[in-house]
């Protein structure tokens, strides 16, 4: 027996479905339309001709290289750090916990100022480094340092929660069977948390790639040395609109590529388990 959708029972259900559909469409459009607008503002010819611009290529190369290095350092240093942090209690653990989250809430420009005031030529530590001829501010190293500072919380928090949720029984069993702590870490802990760590790494890479405020403050803006893609977009939008637009589209495409790669990796992980 079919009932009209205007009947009391079905009316409520209809309204709920409308509301739900509206909500989903609204959120999707809010996220998708700005990205789509980028593509509509340019033409394929303009886009491909801008790609050959030297500034665009150097920004792309610099961004990718620095983000990969930043990610590498965060993973190499952050994973053991998160593991030790989780498996042990030590005095000051609460403070370290808070500090890990700090760059998330700190405005990036403030982070940049802080790095400059510390590592700059007349900075707290920088002045001593300067004696040995080590300069950090306005170099590519500064770009990497800024990226690590702002992006590391994404990976560290993820790693922390993964290691905390991991049932210690697995590791303890391995211990009773005679495996060393290092071997346990490599053969048991990491494989079990791998897919989560990968998603944390992806967020870190994305954040590092998009870093602007700390970079422009601490590393400055020099094409080929410190002008990453976000800086090039900012400068480009004010001078050469098409270049700015092209780099924006490049960033969107890279982001999509990363997300698709991660989805692919994650789905393979599930099948394996």
């Amino acid at each position, binding site marked *: 027996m079919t009932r009209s959708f205007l009947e009391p029972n079905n009316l409520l259900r209809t309204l709920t479905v409308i509301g739900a559909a509206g909500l989903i469409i609204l959120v999707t459009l809010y996220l998708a339309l700005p990205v789509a607008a980028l593509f509509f503002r340019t033409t394929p010819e303009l886009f491909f001709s801008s790609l050959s611009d030297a500034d665009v290529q150097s920004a792309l190369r610099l961004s990718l290289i620095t983000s990969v290095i930043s990610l590498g350092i965060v993973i190499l240093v952050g994973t053991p750090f998160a593991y030790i942090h989780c498996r042990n209690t030590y005095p000051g653990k609460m403070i370290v916990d808070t500090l890990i989250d700090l760059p998330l809430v700190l405005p990036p420009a403030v982070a940049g100022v802080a790095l400059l005031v510390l590592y700059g030529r007349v900075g707290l530590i920088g002045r001593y480094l300067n004696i040995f001829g080590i300069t950090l501010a306005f170099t590519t190293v500064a770009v990497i340092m800024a990226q690590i500072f702002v992006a590391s919380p994404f990976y560290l928090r993820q790693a922390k929660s993964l290691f905390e949720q991991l049932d210690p029984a697995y590791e303890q069993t391995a211990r009773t069977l005679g495996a060393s702590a290092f071997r346990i870490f490599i053969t048991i802990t990491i494989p079990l948390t791998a897919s989560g760590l990968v998603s944390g790494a992806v967020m870190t890479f994305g954040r590092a790639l998009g870093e602007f405020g700390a970079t422009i*403050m601490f590393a400055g803006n020099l094409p080929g040395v410190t002008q990453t893609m976000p800086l090039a977009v900012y400068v480009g939008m004010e001078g050469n609109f098409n270049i700015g637009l092209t780099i924006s589209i490049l960033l969107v495409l890279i982001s999509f590529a990363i997300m698709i790669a991660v989805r692919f990796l994650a789905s393979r992980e599930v099948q394996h388990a």
Partner: protein
Amino acid sequence: MDKSYRIFTTISIVCALLIIAAFFAGCTTSQPTTKPVTTPPATTAPVQSMTTTVVSTPAPTTVVPPTTTAVVVTSTPVPNYTPSEKTLIVYTAASLKGVSGKLGTEFSQAYPGHTAVFNLDGTQALKTQVENGAYADVFISASNSYTNTLKGEGYFMNSTVKPLTTNYVIVILPATNPGNIKTLADLAKPGVKIAMEDKTVPAGTATYAVLANLAKSTYNQDWNKSVFSNVVTYETSEPGVATKVSLGEVDAGFVYESTYTAAPKDTYSAITIPKADNYLQTYTIGVMQQTQNSGTAQEFEDFMLSSIGQQILKDYGFRPVS
């Protein structure tokens, strides 16, 4: 059961789309439309859509904590000002940061009940904001060529565009002179760190011109090349360079004379550039076509061009229009 369910979902989706369309239509009509009077002719200029106003890209905020000097750099995000009779929105070249406070107070005193709010940023950033729909009553530009572009695109009331003041370029050094720079020739020494504005910034164009002139007249092209290879950062506004110098992070920076003159004593040392090689930047002021306070805007322009406004500018190191 199946059939009525399919009808539900179809109708729900249609209703949802209608609601959202109404929402977006409502949004766009309530924005102040800032379509130019003449459509931009150049193909490289952004195409103005007919039905939607593109909201300008928010400029990221670069905030520097106040140092002991008076040079504080703030690049404001694009504000969505509602025009009102009492408050004037003045888009101003960043190099007027130090003087804008005094100008605002004096304007309110001369015209009680009226206030001027300054949006300070690199002229190139302000131009982009205006071209993407930002609202401004008055525009003070540091570059004749940007002014002419905006005039051509129909953003100014062209008859109101007048020269406001002028400024020369100067080289400033941190007070302690860590790079031990005594003359302009020293700028080419290896290892010297120089901060400069990006070439899209009016002060940057001026600096490029000055360096070209100096290379032609006094020093040679090798000097010019060495200076550029010593540049460690191309800032996006003139106060940005001043900040890097005042922090002592670079050995020298190219800024406007007014920045040096108006700074507290012992903030910077300076090396002047011979007038013959220097570039005289002319600032222009004009009332915007889109203004809804044309009376007050004209009053502000008159105030800036009057002896009071010009004297304030002079006190802060700006030069009169020749």
